[in-house]
């Protein structure tokens, strides 16, 4: 586990730069993370990020795209438009949550 300074705050990150501590995230950090992957956060992005942040503590896992759609009410094609090519990974990265993963 390594640390990084994001927006003047020291945070814990993994090899891929994902935050590993739920409580170290804040909205200013999210803006920096989004900029790192070329995304300028709009209101529509924020609705998705806030859903993921609220859902994670109840599930212990980051919501899948399907869950973001069925529970959060977001259109899947819109998620692909907001977070191009790799929405699941990009959403998790900006929200300071683990990326969706398998068992190996």
């Amino acid at each position, binding site marked *: 586990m390594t640390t990084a300074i994001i927006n003047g705050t020291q945070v814990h990150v993994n090899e891929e730069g994902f935050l590993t501590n739920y409580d170290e995230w804040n909205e200013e950090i999210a803006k920096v993370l989004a900029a790192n992957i070329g995304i300028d956060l709009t209101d529509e992005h924020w609705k998705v990020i806030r859903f993921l942040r609220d859902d994670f503590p109840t599930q212990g896992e980051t919501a899948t*795209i399907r869950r973001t759609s069925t529970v959060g009410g977001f259109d899947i094609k819109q*998620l692909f438009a907001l977070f191009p090519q790799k929405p699941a990974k990009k959403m998790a990265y900006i929200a300071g949550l683990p*990326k969706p*993963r398998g*068992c190996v």
Partner: protein
Amino acid sequence: MKRIVILGGGTAGTMASNRLRKRLDPAEWAITVVDQNDAHVYQPGNLFVPFGIYQPADLVKPRRRFLPEGVELVLSEIDHVEPEKNLVVLADERTLSYDFLIIATGTSPRPDQTPGMIGPEWRTSIHEFYTLEGATALANTLADWQGGRMVVHIVDMPIKCPVAPLEFTFLADSYFTERAMRDRVEMVFVTPLDGAFTKPIASKHLGGILDDRKVSLESDFLVEHIDTDAKSLVSFDERQIPFDLLVTIPLNMGADYVARSKLGDDLNYVPVDKQTLLSKAHDNIFAIGDASDIPTSKAGSVAHFSIELFEDNFISYIHGRPMTKLFDGHANCFIESGHGKGMLIDFNYDTEPLPGKYPLPGFGPFSLLRESEANHWGKMTFRWVYWNLLLTGKDMPFEPLMSMAGKEVEARS
């Protein structure tokens, strides 16, 4: 007389009924198991059926044979549960009242959830192997197949036995090689995740294994529908993956009665405390095995380790004592890698699969995260272990909680 009703007589329900029956006085506690049929399938065996390694008849036995004396088996579909009335309503309108309910109805592939999957190509050029019927149909197709483009595809996570799609791919490579037709088969592995391996250490050790077998990878692919005319997977971001033979893992969902009873989440899994398996919504309902929403693999191994602890917890709980045997998400799984070899992984909620030896540190006989012939034989022997030791709750030489002994931990900055 108090009554425990267990919904589902599969791996988890059968283990729980055997363990609880031994611990509870039959004069005080009745135990009833409900299942829709009397056919218990050894599900890990389905993987081997398409390649003719196991025959369907090798994998099915009557459920009743593995339930102990003093456990009643009711064969019926379940219509719904009325948790406020402590009542299970069966499809034929019979009712069962309970003091404690244990939900163990697992998870099932749902091809109906992807448009185009069930249609003219279903079980012809579009197959699955997670049911005995599907695995048998695929065996028939493969026996006559002349080659082409085979696509192995996962609709979405979570799925039962999450390493099985990779194992299928490795066994298919082995099968086509043995039949001297590997050069006529193009193999593609399609996943909604960002790779075939997503945990850092497993990726490092196993990352090249698909390349070695000349299997190409399509990652971050979320299927929207299957175009059966073009024989192509179509994703939400409009990528297309054509196939001659599609082996898909349909969306997995818990049982529909769970949804009708308003006991489940969006995929019909019952929200529970991940350490005790007690329902978050009802204080006399537990969910065990694949039926719960605990954040670990859906696998018989998880069911086994968690139920060893659940047994003690449940006995404490029904006598008003605190539950102290907290589950850590421990699982271990053999992974067939083809050509007579296999791998083994051992992990829990917090620790990713690491290399090493298991169960005896330094000795094994099994190797973690590395291919070996011993691992393959471990997997093949497991069918006997399942029927003769595991289901009936006999002690096994594996600890329910994960141990770091025998695991290699790299020094990290």
